[in-house]
């Protein structure tokens, strides 16, 4: 007898009790999920989820374009794009709309109190307005199952093509060395003037081509311990965020909260649940007031000691955190049912043991107050460049047709994307993006509904689209 048959026969001699327990006749109970521990709140989630089905496919609106950018004509070689059905007028105070879709065609807007900039002052966190979900736009288009990847180009930009935030990578003040977060920070976050120094950058990543810029260094309001700083370079009125590049976790969770003003700068307004089996269950949002309450609960565990960073796979509420004050987007703040909190908001993993009771109280509160939300993704436009138009300010407007993503190409829309920002226009300046290329553009989520103009593009890169592993070539 073959060895495999021997093994199959041996398995056949399993105990009767095991065989009966595994019988297909015995319908297995549903896998135990985290909220079996909070059964009362599970029903709430189910109810909210059901309600959410009618709400979430819609999109919230705030800002649009005044139509200054050049208009793009539909690609005449393709089936003319059409204007999607508009379910609601969606007028906001300024009469414009937010229009967010991701590459899968899912709406991206979070209408439940995720402020773009968390109030940096000492005042209370702005409570969610509980705004109506009526002013929404619905994208009814059917998207293809397309995989989008950015093309790996490995570009080293010349010094002239770098933005100021990209040019200077570090500075030293006193005994502290700070590394760039490669982004601006709003003046509202700027605290006391700490001193002056020189920021350092290197042309072409070459240590022999050092560039220096005299700059003033400022505190970030509410953040102590010299952990963060902003600089203002002489001749530039903008502020750029830096963080001290040291692994120096506070001894207790309470110290961490106070030092970083985590309860102010780390809004816990979006999370998903990971159940006991490691499965992600839904995405939920919370109001800012809920975030305040959660931080009050967490502050009860102020004495929680620092714990070595460790990887977990247990049940948890995984908050997705974005903080302009820290220069982070979509980082993690996890509250594990086994009593640990852990975050990578400061690049290094910081973990504290707050105890099972406190952790469960936080998770239970979050689950109880949760609203359903779509998975949060960076607003993205993917499509084919159909035209590159010079703009009046010396920049460019790029026309991008997203028909290639549509099940029905006639559903495609031609968007006008303002590319005058230096970090965008450099792609055109060096002919790295041309007509016919497929591109992926991230933007602030705002599209003018009438002209399909995007003013808030933040990044652009050539993209590769694949369907079932085959590269999709635009026709």
């Amino acid at each position, binding site marked *: 007898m073959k060895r*495999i048959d021997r*093994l199959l026969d041996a398995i056949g001699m399993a105990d*009767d009790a095991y065989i009966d327990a595994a019988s297909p006749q015995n319908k297995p109970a549903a896998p135990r999920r985290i909220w079996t521990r909070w059964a009362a709140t599970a029903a709430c989630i189910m109810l909210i989820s059901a309600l959410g089905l009618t709400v979430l496919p819609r999109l919230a609106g705030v800002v649009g374009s005044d139509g200054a950018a050049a208009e793009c004509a539909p690609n005449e070689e393709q089936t003319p794009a059409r204007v999607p059905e508009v379910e609601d007028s969606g007028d906001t105070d300024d009469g414009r709309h937010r229009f967010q879709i991701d590459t899968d065609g899912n709406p991206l807007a979070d209408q439940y109190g995720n402020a773009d900039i968390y109030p940096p002052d000492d005042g209370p966190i702005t409570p969610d307005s509980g705004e109506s979900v009526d002013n929404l736009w619905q994208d009814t288009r059917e998207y293809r199952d397309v995989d989008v990847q950015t093309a790996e180009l490995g570009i080293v930009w010349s010094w002239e093509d770098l933005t100021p935030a990209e040019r200077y990578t570090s500075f030293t003040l006193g005994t502290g060395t700070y590394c760039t977060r490669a982004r601006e920070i709003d003046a509202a976050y700027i605290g006391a003037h700490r001193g002056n120094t020189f920021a350092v950058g290197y042309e072409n990543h070459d240590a022999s081509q050092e560039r220096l810029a005299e700059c003033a260094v400022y505190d970030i309001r509410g953040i102590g311990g010299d952990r963060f700083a902003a600089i203002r370079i002489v001749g530039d009125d903008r502020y750029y965020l830096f963080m001290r590049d040291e692994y120096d976790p506070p001894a207790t969770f309470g110290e961490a909260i106070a030092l970083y003003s985590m309860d102010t700068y780390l809004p816990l307004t979006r999370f998903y649940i990971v159940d006991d089996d490691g499965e992600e269950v839904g995405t939920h949002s919370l109001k800012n007031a809920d975030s305040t309450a959660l931080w009050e609960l967490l502050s009860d565990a102020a004495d929680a000691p620092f714990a070595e960073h460790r990887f977990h796979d247990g049940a948890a509420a995984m908050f997705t955190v974005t903080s302009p004050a820290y220069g982070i987007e979509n980082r993690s703040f996890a509250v594990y049912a086994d009593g640990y909190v852990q975050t990578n908001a400061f690049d290094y993993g910081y973990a504290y043991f707050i105890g099972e009771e406190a952790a469960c109280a936080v998770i239970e509160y979050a689950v109880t107050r949760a609203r359903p939300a779509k998975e949060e993704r960076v607003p993205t436009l993917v499509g084919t460049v159909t035209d590159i138009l010079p703009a009046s300010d010396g920049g460019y407007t790029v026309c991008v047709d997203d028909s290639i993503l549509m099940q029905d190409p006639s559903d495609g829309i031609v968007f006008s994307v303002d590319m005058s920002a230096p970090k965008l226009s450099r792609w055109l300046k060096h002919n790295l993006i041309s007509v016919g290329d497929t591109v992926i553009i991230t933007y602030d989520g705002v599209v003018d509904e009438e002209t399909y103009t995007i003013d808030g593009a933040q990044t652009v890169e050539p993209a590769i689209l694949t369907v079932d592993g085959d590269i999709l070539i635009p026709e």
Partner: protein
Amino acid sequence: MEDHAIIDLYFARADNAIAETADKYGRYCHTIAYNITQDTLDSEECVNDTYLRAWNAMPPTRPNSLSAFLGRIVRNLSLDRVRRKQAEKRAAEHMEGIREELWDCLPAESDTAKVADDLVLADIINRFLASLPEVTRNIFLRRYWYFSSVKELAADYHMSESKIKMMMMRARESLRAELEKEGFTP
């Protein structure tokens, strides 16, 4: 009808013993047989043979679990049938997949034969099963005792197919380690 009553019918040599068995466990037996043979006709024959085997075995055998008793008979009959077909190069593709999954768990035939007999192997299997978490054990047996497809398991256990595969891969690795520890080293 309760299992003990059905067993009593066999012991009484009652005409309706098989009918009652088929009524309660016919679908169950057919599922196992079909999972293994992937052939309706073969499955029916295996199930009918199972009833005959049960009739011949009771009495004197009085099974503690009638379902496991019947399931084991139909499983063995179905495996025997597939093996015969494999000998004729007509193995069911479905079974081949399962056989391949388990292949690495055991060393070469010659080594195995030197180390332990079937009862020792069965004892190892039962200890291995006892060591598994309940859900993993049930899924393992659904896969390798009942020969359910990954798709069925994913649906029944509300898990993704990839998760089922991952669980089974880890269970097989665990079984392999257990076998090696007991002297079944490749």
